[in-house]
């Protein structure tokens, strides 16, 4: 079969930059196959996809050398409109790429402008919406959809163009595990019907579903091969800044299942020691909390949760389940419709803004919604200045906060020029400078690579060890397994279960009620009768044949 694309000795440097975003990359993909591209932030994943869509260098300028061919045709001198219809790109910031006001018009936009006959458009729209689980929402206003629904709409709009090469740039970032699984099915089906898909992502577990994976590191191709072997390669994954699935080297893939290789032995007890769940005074108490938005959407109903001082709680659950609404209510940003939420006995919404910010620090998912100053120092100092603190005290807090997130020496850097992971740490520092007693974080690791996640969450874990109560919302179950002391599962606007991570991640019935899945390592461990939940624990629990000393 012919190749969907061929990239030969590709080097690209953005205008105004000295370091190339991609360097001497050779890559090709046969038609009908699915390829996952993984790598750290700035590795060149999005740039490669943008080149395949002719966005680079036609729209985003720079210097390009080497050859790029899509379906045998060179992209030299081509613009996105020249490949429209053959290539479709689903953007990470899907909201900014939606162009119509109703669901049906959004999906029909591509076929209409590509000159597809009207009789064919309705069939394409119906098929695309059905594939993405949006059938029945044709007349809905785009602005009334949830984040997850908008992301699926962006995918449906791409499918409706009937492109033979579909590019997904971090397209699953806002989806809950059930949504990610649905997107995975859509992409797998694309391969089955002869279309080609390239998926840039940071989640190696997701990439196991594709035919091939390519690892990019520092703009160079580090590895290319079958997912199981490539993602189990610790050294190469390390170079690409991808969390290696080292435990997979002990498994063989059979269809969609993984079975232990013959002769691999299981060690007795290998669980990392987890600190006990705090049982101190209540820090946050939600009692029969209910919250209905002015639009009439009931976000919370009979929501009950107690978070103790010093706890490290993960809120997990489906999109639209009520996690963010509860977090905002606990931070005093939303007022309950009924019931109460108390922070150390006080109603947070009734506190003056300064006192509220000191009681509960709230880190938003997108740091770009808050950053507005031209240096890290100024950005972090904004909160303390709002409190009216003396200059010396404000400076002390800025230094402490910047150090806590590992950004010492970068105080005079421009936050807008930093990678997203660093911007998220700037945002965290600006919250920490308020010295809050409780820290609430809304999906703090979304869009971050492995190193950025570790840097951010390690800083938060250190704060927690120092006594700060931490509550964080996430869809990353491996982050839950590694950092949380307690997990609250939220679905349908209330808490449907809670407990230590090991117990919650082992409760299939509870997880499925909230559209969740345990991490791959936990799933495989359970099949082996092990109680471990992280990949490292599972890797330590397995010994290859003839190597009894390796643990």
């Amino acid at each position, binding site marked *: 079969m012919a190749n969907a694309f061929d990239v030969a000795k590709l080097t690209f440097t953005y205008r105004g930059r000295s370091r190339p975003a991609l360097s001497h990359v050779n890559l090709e993909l046969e038609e009908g196959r699915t390829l996952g591209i993984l790598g750290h932030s700035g590795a060149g994943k999005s740039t490669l996809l943008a080149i395949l869509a002719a966005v680079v260098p036609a729209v985003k300028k720079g210097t390009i050398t080497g050859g790029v061919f899509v379906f045998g045709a060179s992209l030299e001198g081509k613009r996105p409109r020249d490949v429209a219809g053959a290539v479709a790109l689903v953007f990470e910031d899907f909201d900014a790429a939606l162009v119509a006001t109703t669901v049906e018009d959004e999906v029909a936009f591509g076929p209409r402008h590509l000159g597809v006959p009207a009789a064919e458009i309705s069939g394409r729209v119906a098929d695309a919406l059905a594939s993405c689980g949006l059938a029945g929402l044709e007349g809905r206003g785009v602005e009334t959809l949830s984040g997850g629904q908008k992301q699926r709409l962006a995918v449906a709009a791409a499918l409706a163009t009937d492109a033979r090469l579909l590019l997904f740039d971090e397209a699953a970032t806002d989806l809950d595990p059930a949504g990610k699984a649905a997107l995975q099915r859509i992409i797998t089906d694309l391969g089955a019907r002869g279309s080609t898909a390239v998926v840039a992502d940071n989640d190696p577990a997701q990439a196991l579903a594709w035919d091939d994976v390519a690892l990019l590191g520092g703009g160079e191709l580090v590895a290319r091969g079958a997912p199981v072997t490539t993602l189990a390669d610790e050294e190469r994954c390390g170079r690409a800044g991808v969390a290696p699935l080292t435990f997979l080297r002990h498994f063989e893939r059979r269809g969609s299942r993984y079975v232990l290789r013959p002769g691999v032995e299981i060690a007795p007890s290998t669980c990392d020691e987890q600190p006990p769940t705090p049982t101190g005074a209540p820090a946050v108490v939600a009692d029969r909390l209910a919250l209905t938005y002015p639009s009439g959407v009931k976000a919370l109903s009979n929501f009950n949760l107690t978070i103790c001082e010093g706890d490290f709680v993960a809120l997990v659950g489906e999109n639209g389940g009520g996690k963010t609404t509860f977090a905002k209510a606990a931070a005093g940003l939303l007022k309950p419709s009924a019931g109460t939420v108390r922070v150390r006995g006080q109603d947070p919404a009734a506190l003056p803004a300064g006192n509220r910010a000191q009681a509960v620090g709230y880190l938003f998912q997108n740091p770009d919604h*808050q950053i507005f100053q031209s240096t890290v120092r100024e950005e972090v100092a904004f909160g303390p200045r709002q409190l009216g603190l003396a200059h010396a005290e404000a400076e002390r807090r800025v230094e402490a906060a910047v150090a806590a997130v590992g950004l010492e020496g970068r105080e005079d850097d421009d936050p807008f020029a930093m990678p997203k992971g660093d911007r998220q740490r700037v945002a965290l520092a600006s919250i920490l400078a308020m010295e809050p007693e409780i820290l609430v974080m809304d999906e703090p690791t979304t869009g971050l690579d492995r190193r950025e996640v570790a840097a951010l969450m390690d800083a938060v874990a250190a704060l927690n060890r120092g006594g700060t109560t931490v509550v964080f919302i996430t869809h990353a179950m491996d982050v839950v397994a590694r950092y949380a002391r307690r997990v609250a599962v939220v679905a349908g606007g209330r808490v449907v279960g809670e407990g230590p991570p090991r117990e919650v991640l082992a409760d299939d019935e509870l997880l499925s009620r909230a559209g969740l899945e345990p991490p791959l390592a936990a799933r495989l461990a359970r099949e082996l009768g092990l109680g471990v939940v992280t990949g490292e624990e599972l890797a330590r629990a397995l010994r290859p044949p003839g190597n009894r000393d390796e643990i």
Partner: protein
Amino acid sequence: MTEAPVKKLHPATRLALLMLTLVLLTTFNNPAYVAPLAAGVTLAALFLCRAETSLRRTAPLAAAFVVSSILLWPPFIKAGEPWAQLWVYRATDLGVLYGLAVGLRIVGMLCAGLAFLAVTTPEEFGQALRSFRVPPSATVTLALAFRLLPVMFETSARALEAQRARGLEFGSNFLSQARRSLPLVVPVFLYSLRSADQLATSLELRGYRATRRPTPYGSRPASAWDWGLAAAFAAVAAAALVIRLCGHGAVLPGRL
């Protein structure tokens, strides 16, 4: 809820009816003529366009328009018998009647506009404009503006929450709010720039301007009923103009 009857009309017919309604409302300046027209438009908005939610929301604004028009117009109208005088404020009977007519006219126009928006999506509006030979690029721009407004509001709301979470209080007076708006303006402005860039790329990749004329979708040709209704409305508007030219329907004949 069943579909609003006006929704069954072709978007171009709806736009034509809106334009003719505006012509009708501006034809007369005698409240005895304008009031029944404004009442008719309001009833049509309520029962034929199902615009009760937006009408309810704007009712206080409409009342404010009428009251302010009655109060503000008289000092500019010298004609008529003195009706009230309070220090330098002087009102004649014709001035009050003209103010009332203009107020009712504005209310009628407001209702007509809200009724049109209640039954017409931006895409349908674009389709109507294309029927009147407006270039497709202008109609896509219009649809994008409608699409991006809620995104801008949402971004502003998130930026507001993010800064409030860092202790920012805007205060109650306008000057204080304006002075403290920088932490909101910068994130929203930068997000808009990035969004515009991505939107342009997204449009191009989905075939925008790949063909000279996009395929009409979800639209049917105007029916005989559409043509008939538009013609009837045009005849009514023409008749109204004739009546006005014959000297009827105006408390101040020299004014619009």
